[in-house]
């Protein structure tokens, strides 16, 4: 487009380009318009630069140069307005590749065979590099983050920073919900069009027509001002109306809950949320339509799932907004821990740039001072923490560094009183639930910074304990979040409040909730269960070539002749199925996977027994736990995936109670038992062969 005809002056060329941009702008092709504006600016600056350097036609420069600069200014304004309106266009494209190259859920399966110590930190494949570079180029905030991280000791986390996570979560909402413009927005759009027209006409004027130019300018200014004033008045009226409506709806919501006596904070919150729902329903018709539809067809089960999935796809509905809020909150709490990677070998030197990593989370470090912990200990620590945030963060990552000790002594000189006060609070039990996530972060540091002189084991004990506490708190938060989501869902659609619809609703909510979070969540579980995973791994290696008989499977339940299996091994189909477990990202689906594994085992066992009974007397007895558990242990052993330990531990926390008593619960319990048995195998080797044939 910038292929300037040689006969034209630079100004005319620039005008042409600007016109194209304005047309694109008018046609709502924002991204192209944005680019075209930038191109115009680029052209102008290029042309002016050439002129300035050649210094030939000075008399022309004065007039035309000024006009060109003004045009550039206007283009810049327009370009800026795009950024201001929706920060998305340039960054949208950045987050898409980011998700594809970083999505931990995708890379998980590759990691399954890798020892847990290396999983998080080292498995970012080299192919990631170019993609990462792309991310850097397109998304400034993200690029900064990544760069510092990678300089900081080669530690590269597969997890997105919370801000990016949040943006990814909300991207769809911006895509889909093209809400109507506010009067002011409308007016400014109109004004932009006027201005564009004005500029176009101005460009057609020859330099001599100064009078016409002034009159054009004045009329433009007048028109624009009028538009704005009218819009302002309309906006005010609308706002008043909205406010009135909001109050009315809030009252309506309050009436609905008025039966309950004392009001807790949660009640209050629920009222506000319900008012939001009412407000939403005033603006949208679909809830009414669905409700009516469900009333007329109460038997139709597909309607329920249809409604729930439709609801969850409406990103501006209060339920979905609440969902995103909770997700972000949980992710924000997970990120500082999981992004640090699994505990490193003690040899990792402390790098100064580590602390810069920390600077990227200034808000998480500083906030505690204002949120005020509920005890003196917490309070004093929080101040301490904000004094030297980088140090405390470093302590988190490198408990076993010798340099830590050194740094702590420095720290002690700085805020000795704080520390002393702190030591007296050592046994202070952390208050649960009520605290901000950041306080938990501080807690981690608190434990470690106090006793740096103690031996490593104690420190790692403290670390483990702190991690466990953190995990517990997060699990609790998730339960609360899901409860709140479900109840808001049922409040919004009373028709869903039947036993079966509720289950369906819950399942959908859980799926939506957990899917983007699971990999970060399981990373935390893996940290907490690291010892168990290591034990599992050791056993897996030790018994890699074990036969089912070695772990106590009765001879009749697997073929002894390896030729009978044609190159595979007994129960291979169950092993393959179990390997798929880590690929799902939703607890319910993982549970279904475990059930399938056990069913496959039973089917295989049945087949193998039939093979045996051909020659012996057919004496049918179904598979009981006495047979099932050894087979399942063998399958788990063969799976060679230590992550299963953490996955199952997580499942146990998030599986719905109602399922625990049924077949699903039985399968999960059996899986847990088999895993625990495999973990114990490497320490109980002699014991194993002793009761081989029981």
């Amino acid at each position, binding site marked *: 487009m910038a292929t300037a005809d040689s006969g034209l002056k630079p100004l005319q060329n620039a005008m042409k380009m600007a016109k194209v941009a304005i047309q694109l702008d008018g046609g709502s092709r924002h991204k192209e318009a944005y680019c075209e504006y930038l191109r115009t600016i680029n052209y102008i600056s290029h042309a002016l630069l050439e002129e300035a350097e050649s210094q030939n036609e000075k008399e022309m420069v004065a007039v035309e140069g000024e006009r060109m600069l003004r045009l550039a200014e206007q283009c810049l304004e327009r370009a800026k307005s795009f950024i201001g309106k929706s920060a998305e266009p340039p960054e949208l494209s950045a987050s898409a590749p980011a998700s594809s190259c970083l999505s931990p859920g995708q890379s998980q399966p590759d990691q399954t065979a890798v020892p847990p110590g290396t999983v998080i930190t080292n498995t970012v494949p080299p192919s990631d590099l170019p993609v990462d570079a792309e991310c850097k180029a397109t998304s400034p905030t993200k690029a900064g983050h990544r760069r510092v991280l990678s300089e900081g000791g080669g530690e590269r986390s597969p997890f997105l920073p919370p801000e990016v996570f949040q943006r990814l979560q909300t991207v769809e909402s911006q895509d889909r919900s093209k809400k109507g413009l506010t009067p002011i927005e409308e007016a400014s759009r109109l004004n932009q069009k006027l201005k564009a027209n004005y500029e176009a006409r101005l460009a057609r004027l020859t330099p001599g027509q100064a009078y016409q130019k002034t009159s054009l300018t004045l009329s433009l200014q007048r028109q624009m001002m009028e538009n704005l004033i009218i819009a302002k008045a309309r906006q005010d009226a609308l706002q008043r109306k909205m406010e009135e409506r909001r109050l009315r709806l809030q009252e309506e919501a309050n009436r609905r809950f008025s039966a309950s006596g004392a009001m807790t904070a949660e009640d209050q919150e629920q009222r506000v949320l319900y008012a939001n729902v009412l407000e939403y329903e005033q603006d949208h018709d679909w809830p009414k339509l669905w409700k009516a539809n469900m009333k007329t067809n109460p038997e139709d089960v597909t309607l329920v799932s249809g409604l729930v999935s439709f609801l969850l796809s409406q990103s501006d509905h209060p339920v979905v907004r609440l969902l995103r809020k909770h997700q972000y909150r949980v992710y924000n709490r997970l990120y500082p821990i999981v992004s640090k990677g699994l505990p490193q070998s003690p040899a990792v030197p402390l790098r100064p740039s580590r602390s810069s990593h920390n600077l990227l989370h200034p808000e998480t470090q500083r906030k505690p001072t204002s949120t005020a912990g509920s005890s003196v200990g917490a309070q004093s620590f929080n101040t301490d923490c904000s004094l030297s945030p980088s140090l405390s963060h470093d302590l988190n990552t490198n408990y076993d560094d010798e340099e830590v000790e050194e740094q702590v002594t420095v720290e002690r000189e700085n805020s000795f009183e704080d520390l002393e006060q702190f030591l007296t609070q050592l046994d202070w039990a952390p208050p649960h639930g009520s605290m901000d996530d950041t306080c938990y972060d501080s807690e981690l540091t608190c434990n470690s910074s106090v006793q740096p002189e103690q031996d490593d084991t104690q420190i790692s004990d403290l670390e483990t304990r702190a991690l466990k506490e953190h995990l517990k708190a997060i699990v609790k938060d998730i339960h609360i979040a899901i409860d709140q989501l479900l109840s808001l869902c049922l409040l919004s659609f009373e028709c869903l409040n039947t036993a*079966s619809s509720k289950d369906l609703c*819950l399942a959908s909510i859980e799926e939506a909730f957990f899917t983007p979070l699971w990999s970060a969540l399981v990373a935390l579980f893996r940290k907490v269960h690291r010892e168990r995973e290591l034990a599992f791994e050791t056993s897996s290696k030790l018994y890699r070539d074990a036969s089912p008989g070695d772990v106590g499977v009765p001879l009749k339940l697997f073929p002894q002749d390896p030729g009978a299996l044609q190159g595979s091994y007994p129960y291979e189909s169950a092993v393959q199925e179990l390997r798929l477990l880590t690929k799902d990202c939703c607890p319910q689906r993982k549970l279904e996977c475990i059930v399938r594994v056990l*069913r496959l085992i039973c089917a295989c066992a049945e087949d193998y027994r039939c093979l045996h009974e051909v020659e012996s007397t057919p004496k049918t007895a179904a598979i009981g736990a006495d047979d099932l558990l050894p087979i399942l242990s063998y399958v788990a052993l063969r799976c060679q995936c230590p992550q299963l330990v953490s996955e199952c531990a997580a499942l146990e926390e998030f599986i719905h109670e*109602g399922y625990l*008593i049924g077949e699903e619960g039985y399968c999960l319990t059996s899986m847990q038992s088999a895993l625990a048995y495999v973990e*114990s195998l490497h320490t109980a080797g002699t014991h194993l062969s002793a*009761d081989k044939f029981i």
Partner: protein
Amino acid sequence: MAAGGAGGNSGSGNRTYSFKVVLLGEGCVGKTSLVLRYCENKFNDKHITTLQASFLTKKLNITGKRVNLAIWDTAGQERFHALGPIYYRDSNGAILVYDITDEDSFQKVKNWVKELRKMLGNEICLCIVGNKIDLDKDRHVSVEEAESYAESVGAKHYHTSAKLNKGIEELFLDLCKRMMETAQAEERLKGNGASQSASSRRGVQIVDDEPQATPAGGCCSSG
């Protein structure tokens, strides 16, 4: 299987109890045959889940109340012993099976009783079952010893033969009734109509049911 939504209102007969029962016993005492016999006898094969005899469900109707039983088999081998607790947590009942011809298996039952009482207290209904009474001539555990032991630990004692299908129906019916009593007592203790805070993870669930359900387990009330 109804999940979640355990909110129930008391008073009407229109509800379903869900009970979890664990099956404990050494390898060869015949606990698998026992439970298979129970679930196969009155009903056809469809009550055997795809997990075969490891996990079985049964629907009963006892004095107008519907009961869903989930029967959890456990591995009897010594090396899985440490894993017992995760199986029997939240159980409402336990069936501890020994072989009357095998003194050792009775000792094992005693160990389990101790453990269950320690972990679950008195809320769990215990049944001690001497199986294989068809082999009475080889009996190594005397009736008196077994019964007095059961009484001393607050358990009930039963004699069964999976082979002859003796005593099994009675065993389960009795157990169900006792579990219902326990559940009702617990309910009364909590106070009727009090909101179920769902704080306890125990398996007693009183699920509201739609009345149109078929009277599937009706025949069992005969005992």
